[in-house]
Structures are given as C-alpha cells and as structure tokens.
C-alpha cells in the first residue's frame, strides 16, 4: 500500500531543465519531464528533433560523444545521475538500453545473454537459470532453447532484437530504454516486439523512441512530442493523440509534416 502511494508520488525518472550541446550546437533545450514507474513512455518527433539524444541522456550514453555538454538534472529514483558520486557502470546496470539495429555480440546465444551477468560477477552456477529466464521473458526461449550454443548472428533480425532485449533483461535493470527498436524489422517481428514491450511494463519502466506514430499510440501510456530540441508537449498518450494542446503536435500527428 505504502509502495503504491510512493509510486504515484515519486516518478521513476525526473528530468529538470535539461540542456545539451554538441560543440556549439544546442541539441536539447530546457527539457523537463516526469516518467512514472511501470509505464511505457513514447517519444516521437521528426528526424533530428533530439528524441534519441534525449533518451541517451538517461543512461549517460552521451558520455561517449566528444564535445557533448550537459546542463540540468536527471533524477532516477530521486538520485541525480550526473552527480559527482555516480558510478556509470551501476547506472547502466539499472538503466538498460536496446538499440535501433540489433547488435548481438559475435558469440553464442548463451554467451550473449550471460555477458552482462558475467561482467557483474554473477556466480557461474546461477548463469543457466538467468539465461533461461531472460530468454523466456523476451519471448525467444522456445526458438532458442535447443541451440543455445549456436552463434547469435545465425538468428533472424527479429530474433536478434529479442535476443538483445533478453540480454538487457539478464542484467536485471529497473528501466529499459528502447531507441527505435523496430525500425529495422519487418511488420511481424515488429508486432512481436510491441507485444513484448507491453508485457515488460509489469516489471520495468520503459521509455521508447519511435518514428512510428501508430506504434506510440498502440503501446504507450505517455507520449512526448519533440521538435527541434524542444519538448513541445508531454502527457497521456490518449490525450496527445486525441486532444493535443499544441498546434505543431496536431500537425505532426495528423501527418502534415514529419
């Protein structure tokens, strides 16, 4: 009961006045957003609007980009992830990420899933269980259980992407970021991944960047619309799609640009 109240009162992710520059160019302008626990939040907007840049701030993947400068605060479970005492390794353990193009490592299916637990020092005898559970949660166990030792690259694109989701789950994060996870996949693989994301919501907080507005409408609880580095509108998905407050949101959703 107390926990339920806490969930409502404290969002899982709070972003406050986030600004980001690549060199001289400002890519994100004063973004503030609150993302509740166990929800799916979709970020939409035309190419180059900053939605991918934004999602990469949530697990500090932008640290890899040279000349990238960030101001503002990103609180995850109340803690500023850009604070001085933050261990990026711990952060990324808690905030997993699935990428646009499936990127399995060139090793066996089993080793792909076991990679994360191994580097975090999980006991060897627990690995089999973790691998099976991760593959089951990512709805790919049936297809792979008899070929765990075969190379991950022998899987189809859609299977590879579910493998990458399983790989992320194996580290037991609390938040999963999806950066256009289906844009390289066919419609059938896409619908399987969408179904999977909706199921994962029970246990994880999910933020997904998508080009596909129908996808956002189908799977998300909250939607944020980005345009030229600004968060134009953020709210419940139903409201954004049926009753947008901003003119540009409406124009984008109805397909007048994008």
């Amino acid at each position, binding site marked *: 009961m107390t926990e339920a109240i806490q969930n409502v009162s404290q969002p899982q992710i709070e972003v406050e006045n986030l600004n980001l520059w690549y060199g001289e160019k400002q890519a994100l302008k004063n973004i503030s957003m609150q993302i509740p626990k166990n929800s799916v939040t979709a970020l939409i907007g035309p190419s180059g609007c900053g939605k991918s840049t934004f999602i990469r701030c949530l697990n500090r993947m932008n640290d890899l980009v040279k000349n990238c400068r960030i101001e503002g605060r990103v609180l995850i479970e109340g803690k500023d992830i850009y604070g001085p005492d933050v261990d990026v*390794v711990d952060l*990324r353990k808690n905030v*997993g990420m699935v*990428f646009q193009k499936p*990127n399995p490592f*060139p090793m066996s299916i089993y080793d792909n899933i076991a*990679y994360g637990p191994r*580097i*975090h020092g999980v006991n060897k005898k627990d690995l089999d269980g973790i691998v099976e559970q991760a593959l089951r949660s990512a709805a790919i166990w049936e297809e792979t259980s008899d070929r765990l030792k075969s190379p991950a690259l022998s899987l189809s694109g859609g299977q590879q992407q579910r493998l990458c989701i399983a*790989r992320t789950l194996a580290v037991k994060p609390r938040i999963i970021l999806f950066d256009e996870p289906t844009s390289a996949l066919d419609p059938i693989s896409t619908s399987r991944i969408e179904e999977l994301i909706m199921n994962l919501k029970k246990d994880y907080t999910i933020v997904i960047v998508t080009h596909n507005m129908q996808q956002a409408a189908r799977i998300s609880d909250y939607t944020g619309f980005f345009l030229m580095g600004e968060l134009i509108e953020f709210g419940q998905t139903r409201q954004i799609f049926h009753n947008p407050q901003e003119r540009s949101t409406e124009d984008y959703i109805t397909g007048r640009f994008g």
Partner: protein
Amino acid sequence: MFNRIYKEKGIESVLFFVSTLTVAVLFLICLFLFRDGILLFKETSLLDFLTGRFWYPTSVNKQFGLLPLFLGSLLVTAGAILFSVPLGIASAIYISEIAHPKVADFLKPFIEILAGIPSVVFGFFGLVVLVPFMQNTFNLPTGQTALTGSIMLGIMALPTIVTISEDAISSVPSTLRQGSLALGATRWQTIYKVIIPAALSGISAAVMLGVGRAIGETMTLMMVTGNAAIIPSFPGGFLDPVRTMTATIALEMGEVPQGSDHFYALFAVGSVLFIITFLINLIADSIKKKYRFKVD
C-alpha cells in the same frame, strides 16, 4: 562508333595484360627458383638437405644441411614475434580504442614512417647502437646475436602488425561497443571481451603478415646477427650468433661459381623460403577473408 568500341577494347586488353603480367612474373620467379634449386638434388638427397646439420658449402667435403640456417631463421623470427605481437596489438588497441582521435592521428603517420625506413638503415642502427649495448649488457664476446636480430626484426614487423590490427579493431561496428557499455561493462571489459574477440581474425592475419615480413628480411639480419651457420641451442642460442636463410643467400651468392652445387644449394634455400612465405601469406589471406565476411 566502331572507333570507340575499339578504343574501349584496347584499353581493356592493356589493363588485362598489365594485371596478368604480375601473375606471370610470379610464375617465372617460381619456375627459375625451383628449376635451379632442384638441380642440387642430383648430388645431395632432399632428406640430407632438409635434415643436414652442417652448412659447409666450400670445404672439401661439401655439406649442404639446411637445418642450421632454418633454425637460425626460426629462432630470430620467433624472438621477434614474441615481443612485437603483444607490443603491436597493445599499440593497435591504444590507437583505435583509447587514444583521443587527435593523438591517434598524430601517432599513425609515425608508425607508417617506421614501415618506410630502408632495412639497411635499421641494420646500421642495430650495428652501431644495439650490438655494443647487447655486448655490454650480457657481457658477451660479440653483440651480434640472434636476440639482437630479433629485436631489430620485431621493430621492423611492428608497423605491419599495428596498422593491420588497428584496421581490424576499428572495423568492429560501434554498435557492439555501445551494446556492451549499455550493459554496464567498463571500457576495458568491452575491449577485451567484445572488441578483441570480434577483431581476432583480423589480428591473426596481422600477426601472420608480420611473420611473413620477418622471415623474408635480409639486410638488417645480415648486419646484426653475426652470420655463424651453427645450429642454435634453445633458449641459450638467443645470445649466440646465428645465420638466417636469407642472409646466407645474400652473403654467398656473389662468390659462388654459377652452375656449381653451391649455386644450386642457394637456389634450394631460396625455394624453401619462397614456400614458407607463400604458405604464410596464404594463411593470412584466408583468415582475412573470413573476417571480412564476418564484419559485413
């Protein structure tokens, strides 16, 4: 119209001729090498040549035993690989994964320049600097040893190993790097658990090409290894003078009467060298092909 077609055909056939010329030259070299090399076996059996322990080409009882020369080459090359491979791979990792791009851009030309230095210059440097150093450090009668040759050769093989390994490491897709880091791996874990394994075939090809470069090297070794055709002991032989196959050919070819046993023996040594480098390049090439496929 016809004119244009003839012109096209003409250019085509010129290019065809030029490119087949390379192959033809290779075949001709092969042919002459083996044709003269084989003549040795009229007098000396192939087995005696391959397993003979003595290289006495000019004494009354002539003996053409390859073993001291072959083992000399092997020892020097093994020593070179032993230190240039770890060093080369470490440099490649530093340049492609760790160094700031500006630092990498600064370092890379120097490594390429190292590859362009003529081997006689390396030999001169070895003779003047390294040979006395070895003599003093290990308190030897002469500083011209297998180890001296290994060190020089290692330095000379480095650019090949570094540039090709660096190429292999850089062509590992950055999505793999990001995937690993996003799982909470450190940069070092990402390098040795994901990037190196993914680049392994390219790195092996680099090592093989480095070996090929080392086995064929002549001038430097002739200047710094002392050229004593004695079967080296192991590992103590590193501090003794040795003679490599390449140095033997270079040293003796000028003074040998054409058509003599000795003349043919040198061609036979050349044939062995040719076969070894050919095999090494073949292996390197097949490894490289495999890795290209994987990266695509």
